[in-house]
């Protein structure tokens, strides 16, 4: 991993179209500004990891579950 030391107001350029700026350093927090093309996906690491984990867990189902759930959910809708 490339490690660089930056002060508030300083930045990093990645490739031709990504610019990262350290906006503010306060307490234990660092505010980072990112300029990148709109099609580039930018996520907080923990949010991204949680979604990958949830997608993985979502593949662990059984056809029998789907059948029994469908009956429950249909009954629920009729009750509404």
């Amino acid at each position: 991993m490339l490690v660089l030391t930056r002060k508030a107001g300083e930045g990093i350029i990645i490739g031709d179209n990504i610019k990262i700026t350290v906006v503010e350093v306060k307490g234990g927090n660092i505010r980072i500004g990112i300029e990148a093309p709109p099609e580039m996906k930018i996520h907080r690491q923990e949010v991204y990891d949680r979604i990958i984990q949830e997608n993985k867990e979502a593949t662990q189902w059984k056809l029998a579950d789907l059948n029994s759930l469908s009956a429950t959910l249909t009954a629920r809708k009729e009750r509404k």
Partner: protein
Amino acid sequence: MKTIQSRFGQIEYDPAKVLHFSEGLLGFESLRDFVVMANVKEGPLFWIQSCEDPEIAFVLTDPTNFYLEYKVMPDTSERTKLGMHEGEVSHTLVVVTVHEGGKITLNMAAPLLYSVSNNRALQVVLEKSAWSTRQELPTVDAK
């Protein structure tokens, strides 16, 4: 018609009706094509089977079955990725997680946008939203 293997046996499908994820789903970026399977039982759930990996299938639902107000609009770059033209609309679907004991939650923090005109879909991440990756179903008052 073509056939593929799934965890639930062999499936016959129409290649023209395959759902295409140009970026895959998060964590499954290499899986691009899915067959949409109608559920045999009546109800809001259906499932999609990967054409490329027999082990991978997801249960999906239209979230407005449970949360009427939930609506996700694609931004300009998402519209481009979906190959949508002016005036075309997308539908929103969510991945359902079936937990031990049969409880289900909806991943409403990372919905799927689906362009009906060309069968393309995209999983998007709602960064600034109160919706959870494990949104529980709203409680229903019994009459």
